[in-house]
């Protein structure tokens, strides 16, 4: 094997690393402005409408493991190629702490399977330090980002309802789908206990918005990728039209190794390993845009050391990799006795919940800072691996179809009937909240470990604080309140202090942000307010690495808005001759 590094003769205007929400948006905006773009993606090509990739509408028996998550973490049919563990691409942990890092290696990255929950950060979310004194404020405010949220809403499409809730800004919404049966019951329960239940805000097209994309046909399987392009995936909604301009060359199976810089400390391109032949290549470009995901972009910068950037590119502040934070998460499920033996009809609906609970206690004094929203699930979903498990915990607890109590467990026709009788009567909810960004939660380069391409890997240190644990406790109390108000019976026992109230391990919610945070002070931040490195003016970061704080909102809509904003800034600066 030759170790010669192959340099492409072309000098691109922009080289983008990563094709997820941030990279896809940058590719589209920049290519449409006429820039010549190289888009580097660590995984293969993906198009959810190409039969060779389609898993949507497949039945469980088309998978020998019935869609189980043995290999793909969200099951055989899920459109995420990768997971928390990728063969040959390890990461390590420090001081006995845990952080789990989810990566999708494919065109469009994690946007192919994400929950499509598309929430704007509100005015408070950019200035939380002003409220509770913790963490830092963003250098920008809601008003700076609002025009971009508006443009993203129009470009990508999102359904929702106008609610006029101060910190939950309304968008430009398509009509939301009507609630399902258990969701109507939730709304009623919410009124009883003063917890708002409003239409969810998902980037799924309930009406067509252009000729390239169809509208939702209600199969509930957005996580499998949509062959009608009726939901937001970067691959189909951003990269595809970007490539159509003729200005984008996509390099797939290309694992970025370093950002190459010159004697002035400015970037001249990106080197990568072609996973097909393990050869080294360099893409030359005038501007480098990193969108590899918060931790992967931080890793790339840390691995881009030079005499001008001795601690890694963009790390003169020493902040690179620090302030890593993921959403908090906890859940609970319940049985709804009044839903047994329900009438059958197709209630698959859109991919995900039709209603949700935005954070409702901003004005209340609580024993923890920030807040959380609640996502709901339930109904007559499609059976897959795991369906029917644990009937012995159910059928002895509640009367069966004949109205009589019986011994738990069993076998035979009576058991068979139980599965049918209890089907669709379960219900679950999950809190997703804001953690406090801390300097001592971070990723760094492990000095001893490389991946199979020889690239030094990340080592994580991450702990939850009392803030997050108390938040999870509050979630559990709220869950029981809602379940009780619905006339439901909580499943299992209430998670207590021994499990941090069911608080998920860091990284499990897959909302990691903060590793290249933005700020006006170059000694305390990695990028400026335009997502541009303080240390190298032609390098930008357009993934969630720039987030100063995470809000309780899913990050994607803000990634899209900030990437669009940074891309327009790049166009402007190029026009002015500054790049």
């Amino acid at each position, binding site marked *: 094997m030759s170790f010669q590094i192959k340099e492409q003769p072309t000098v691109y205007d922009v080289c983008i690393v990563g094709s997820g929400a941030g990279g896809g948006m940058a590719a589209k905006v920049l290519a449409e402005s006429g820039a010549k773009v190289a888009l580097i993606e660590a995984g*293969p090509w993906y198009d959810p409408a190409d*039969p*060779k*990739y389609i898993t949507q*509408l*497949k*039945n469980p*028996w*088309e998978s*020998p*493991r*019935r*869609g*189980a998550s043995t*290999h793909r973490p969200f099951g*055989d*049919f899920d459109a995420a190629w990768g997971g928390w563990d990728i063969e040959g691409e390890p990461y390590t942990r420090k001081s006995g702490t845990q952080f789990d890092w989810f990566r999708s290696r494919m065109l469009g990255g994690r946007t192919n399977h994400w929950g499509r929950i598309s929430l704007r950060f509100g005015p408070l979310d950019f200035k939380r330090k002003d409220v509770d004194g913790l963490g830092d404020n963003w250098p920008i405010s809601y008003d700076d980002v609002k025009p971009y949220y508006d443009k993203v809403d129009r470009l990508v499409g999102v359904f929702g309802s106008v609610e006029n809730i101060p910190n939950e800004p309304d968008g430009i919404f398509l009509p939301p*789908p*009507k*609630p*399902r*049966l258990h969701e*109507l*019951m939730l709304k009623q329960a919410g009124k009883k206990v003063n917890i708002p239940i409003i239409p969810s805000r998902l980037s799924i097209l309930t009406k067509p918005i252009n000729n390239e994309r169809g509208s939702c*046909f*209600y*199969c509930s399987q957005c996580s499998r990728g949509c062959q009608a392009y009726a939901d937001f995936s970067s691959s189909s909604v951003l990269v595809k039209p970007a490539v159509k301009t003729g200005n984008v060359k996509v390099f*797939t*199976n290309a694992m970025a190794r370093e950002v190459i810089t010159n004697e002035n400390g400015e970037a001249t391109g990106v080197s990568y390993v072609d996973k*097909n032949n393990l050869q080294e290549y360099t893409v030359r470009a005038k501007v480098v845009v990193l969108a590899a995901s918060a931790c992967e972009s931080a890793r790339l910068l840390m691995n881009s050391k030079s005499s001008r950037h001795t601690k890694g590119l963009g790390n003169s502040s020493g902040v690179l990799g620090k302030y890593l934070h993921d959403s908090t998460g906890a859940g609970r499920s319940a049985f709804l006795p*009044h839903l047994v033996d*329900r*009438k*059958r*009809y*197709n*209630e*698959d*609906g859109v991919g995900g919940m039709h209603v949700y609970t935005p954070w409702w206690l901003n004005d209340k004094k609580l024993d923890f800072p920030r807040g959380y929203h609640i996502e709901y699930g339930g109904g*007559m979903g*499609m*059976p*897959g*691996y*795991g*369906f*029917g*498990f*644990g*009937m012995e915990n159910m059928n002895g607890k509640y009367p069966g179809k004949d109205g009589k109590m019986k*011994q*738990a*467990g*069993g*076998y*035979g*026709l009576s058991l*068979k009937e139980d599965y*049918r009788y209890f*089907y669709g009567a379960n219900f679950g909810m999950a809190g997703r909240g804001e953690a406090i960004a801390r300097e001592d939660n971070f990723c760094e380069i492990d000095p001893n470990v490389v991946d199979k391409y020889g690239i030094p890997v990340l080592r994580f240190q991450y702990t939850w604080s009392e803030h997050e644990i108390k938040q999870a406790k509050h979630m559990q109390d709220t869950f029981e309140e809602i379940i009780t108000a619905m006339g439901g019976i909580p499943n299992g026992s209430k998670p207590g202090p021994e499990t941090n109230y069911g608080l998920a391990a860091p990284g499990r919610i897959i909302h990691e942000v903060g590793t290249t945070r933005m700020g006006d002070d170059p000694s305390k931040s990695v990028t400026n307010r335009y997502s541009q490195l303080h240390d190298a003016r032609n390098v930008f970061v357009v993934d969630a690495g720039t987030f100063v704080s995470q809000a309780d909102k899913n990050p994607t809509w803000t990634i899209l808005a900030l990437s669009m904003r940074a891309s327009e800034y790049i166009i402007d600066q190029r026009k002015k001759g500054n790049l």
Partner: protein
Amino acid sequence: MKRRDTLKALSLGTLTATIAGTEAQADVPKKAVAPPSLSDFKNGKSAAELARDAKLAATVFFTPHEMQTIRVLADFIIPADGQFGGATEAKVAEFIEFIVKDMPQHQTPMRGGLSWLDNQCLKQFGKKFVACPKAQQIQMLDQIAYPAQAKPEMSQGVSFFNLMRNLTATGYFTTEVGFKYLGYVGNRPNAWDGVPEDVLKKYGLSYDS
């Protein structure tokens, strides 16, 4: 016995992809296993995934005797009724054979549980489970199928039967006959316009309130 045919069918579609992946690497020494191409996908699966599934399908875990016992147990758990088939029609035993290879954590509990069952039957009836007459099989199952009333010395049997019940249910309800029995009518393009009127009425709900 149709199991071998099923194995063949499972591997046929998938082997092609493996071979195609190998051919592309003609210069690789014969003994080395060529890595599947990164960009080859078929039916929503990568070449590597297809190769893994084909390999799993081509190996055999349970002995014929164990498979026979699984069949009998699965049909006890989910029998056919007048209208819908049971575990055998849904090929539940074949599913269990695959899933224990895919999820090795089930292998010892299943193999050991089947052995425990035979041993109990030998002690109580002088025959292995499948050789017992139906009345004795039922007598045996009644000692392990009801966790709350089972005797303490039957606890290992209860654990095994819980696993067997779970795998049988999952294997059954993830098939066409299982869908039909359950009345699942989704997984197809449609238009959602809310809960049907009669259902709303039944629960005293409406979209106006």
